[in-house]
């Protein structure tokens, strides 16, 4: 609503979003659709019950290739890269020496010594510089492929049914967090069975110039099955219900990987990596705080991102993300609280516009799809 001083970056689908009458917002310097005319609730429901199509072309892609590629990615990330099969993907992070987050990312193993690193849009330049800085002494090339790459995410239980008629690549055999290369609607793609919604689905990477043609083909194939274009608004509620971290919320450069509940991406026994020493030390000491899921007890009490968690009028923690949950029908959130309070069924108080309201700690993820 306000005048923007700097020119926002645009994905190859900017015109397509405007043609669909999307509401556009500044997201980390990118002009992105927050919702289409159907609205966040309808888009959220479409992804949970049918399918939604997201533009995620703003994400950053960094390719690392050469005889030293595996050693470099092992050094840069806490998850066990050598365990990845060619054609497999995993979730991981770039950490600082103190164990806090530069960013979170996906690592795609394209070959024995070739990796595609997919990072957050808002951190893309910082991440590329980080990888370059640490690549010295490793025999490999580091290329920022972000400007040349488009990406769309088809998410929801009807994803296979919508996408299969557009490609000769058999989709059903692609396992969750695996990928392959193929053609979709005649366009060369990296077809990845991944996503950020908790539903089955595919992330399709293609040349930037092909993105709009790919988007239109998937929209046309999916519309008869109830596919909706889906914006960042429902992307946030979908990922929150599944307790998937968002940089700047659950994780940032003040929170380390273990307290974020991400011990499963930290393989302390894999050999050295940046942040390992700090996380070893953190693991040996009792954790002062923990990320928990909560629901507020009254319908009118809707917690929001960054609100304080309080006790006797003093702040003891903070909400990272919170919203009314479209799927669960209750007001949910994630918060860092002192470890001694982090028990399922325990009560905490959230300060909402000056008023301390009751919340109950509940198990996460809040939503899990039926297998």
């Amino acid at each position: 609503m306000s005048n923007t001083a700097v020119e926002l970056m645009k994905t190859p689908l900017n015109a397509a979003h405007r043609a669909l009458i999307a509401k556009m917002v500044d997201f980390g310097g990118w002009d992105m659709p927050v919702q289409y005319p159907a609205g966040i609730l309808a888009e959220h429901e479409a992804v949970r019950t049918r399918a939604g199509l997201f533009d995620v072309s703003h994400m950053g892609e960094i390719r690392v290739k050469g005889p030293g590629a595996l050693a470099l990615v092992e050094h840069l990330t806490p998850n066990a890269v050598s365990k990845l099969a060619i054609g497999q993907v995993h979730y991981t992070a770039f950490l600082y020496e103190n164990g806090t987050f530069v960013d979170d990312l996906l690592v795609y193993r394209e070959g024995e010594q070739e990796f595609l690193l997919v990072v957050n849009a808002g951190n893309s330049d910082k991440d590329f510089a980080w990888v370059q800085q640490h690549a010295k002494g490793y025999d490999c090339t580091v290329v920022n492929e972000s400007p040349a790459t488009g990406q769309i995410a088809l998410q929801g239980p009807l994803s296979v049914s919508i996408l299969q008629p557009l490609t000769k690549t058999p989709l059903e055999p692609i396992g969750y967090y695996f990928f392959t290369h193929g053609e979709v609607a005649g366009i060369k793609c990296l077809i990845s069975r991944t996503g950020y919604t908790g539903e089955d689905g595919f992330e399709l990477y293609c040349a930037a110039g092909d993105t709009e043609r790919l988007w239109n083909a998937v929209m046309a194939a999916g519309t008869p099955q109830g596919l909706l274009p889906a914006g960042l608004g429902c992307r946030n509620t979908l990922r929150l219900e599944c307790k998937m971290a968002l940089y700047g919320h659950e994780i940032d450069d003040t929170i380390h990987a273990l307290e974020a509940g991400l011990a499963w991406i930290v393989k302390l026994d894999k050999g050295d990596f940046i942040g390992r020493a700090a996380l070893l030390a953190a693991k040996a000491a009792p954790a002062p705080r923990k990320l928990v899921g909560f629901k507020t007890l009254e319908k009118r009490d809707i917690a929001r991102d960054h609100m304080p968690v309080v006790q006797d009028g003093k702040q003891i923690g903070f909400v990272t993300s919170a919203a009314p949950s479209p799927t669960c029908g209750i007001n949910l959130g994630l918060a860092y609280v002192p470890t001694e309070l982090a028990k399922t069924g325990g009560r905490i108080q959230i300060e909402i516009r000056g008023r301390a309201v009751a919340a109950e700690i509940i198990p996460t993820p809040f939503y899990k799809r039926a297998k």
Partner: protein
Amino acid sequence: MFPADLKYTKDHEWLKPAGDGTALVGITHYAQDALGDVVFVDLPEVGEAIGHGEEFGTVESVKTVSELNMPSDAEILEVNGLLADHPEAVNEDPYGKGWMVKVRLKGALAADLLDAKAYEALVSAESH
């Protein structure tokens, strides 16, 4: 989008005087569109006196929350009971079924209320 029989605030509330000293108050089409799907409307108690510009409630959407400010000095006569179970009425019919409170006006209408033309100009300036 901008009914001529309403008065508007710069914060995107509307007020519709009934001519008998009472009025309905709600939020504008522009406001509901900016909020997106409304999921809860928190409204005051009947009988409360609320001054011009003071908060009388909040409207919560999936993505954000907005304060409701009273367009003119008033006392709450009635709150729209429909909104408790059907907050989406605010999106579907912001000037009709989505009204929020019925008030008794106290004294003269606030001097800073806008007519439809002035409000339309304000919204068109905010949208660009």
